[in-house]
């Protein structure tokens, strides 16, 4: 199934925040004493969780093995997969 523009927009917001989190993670791996970077990291982690909660309610789970909740029927297996978006 082709994703709606709304789904693509929300996904892009998640990708933006999560990119900053990846970048901060690697930075902190070699700069573990940087207080400001850790603060920024924790703030963005909250933001990421909020955005994903909102996305998952509309478009289904992003993670499994218990990383996300499921509605009925099991919707983890639904398209589109990332390369189909």
């Amino acid at each position: 199934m082709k994703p709606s523009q709304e789904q693509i927009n929300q996904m892009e917001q998640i990708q933006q925040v999560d990119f900053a989190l990846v970048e901060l993670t690697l930075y902190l791996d070699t700069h573990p004493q940087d207080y400001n970077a850790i603060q920024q990291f924790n703030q963005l982690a909250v933001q990421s969780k909020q955005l994903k909660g909102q996305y998952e309610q509309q478009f289904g789970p992003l993670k499994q093995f218990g990383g996300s909740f499921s509605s009925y029927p099991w919707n983890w297996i639904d398209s589109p997969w990332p390369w189909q978006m």
Partner: protein
Amino acid sequence: MWYYEKKLQYPVKVSECNPRLAKFLIEQYGGADGELSAALRYLNQRYSIPDKVIGLLTDIGTEEFAHLEMIAAMVYKLTKDATPEQMKEAGLGAHYANHDHALFYHDAAGNPWTATYIQAKGDPIADLYEDIAAEEKARATYQWIINMSDDPCLNDSLKFLREREIVHSQRFREAVEILKQEQDKKKFY
């Protein structure tokens, strides 16, 4: 353990079906300096590296799998609508004969991926220098592919990946300095 997340690290868009570009891109899927090599190299080295840099190898190794998925998405989108004739014209005739439209871990010239592409010397400095070199080689490969590509959508994603190689290289250089400092500390005991 690892969790899969149903999202690409960065959006992958292509302007049109272009199996010729896919043939070049497969270098970063199953080539010596590609994303599979990178992920397996770092995640394998981390068991014998000093504790101070295990986190970095774990996280960069994990990010490489996200890059592998991006390359797969590019190849998939560039080839999914290609006819056998178009595959043949693009130099993918041999690939098509063996794999149809399936992806396979080989380089742009068709050589299958091999574990000999990666090293694990057990010497932390030797391993990290190899990792820095691998990132620089991957960065160069992305540049050569961008130079041959006329697809602006694809180039946007490729430029993202090229920049990631630079950041990874920088982080590995910092890891070398961290280990050198640790080494110096020990001498004063």
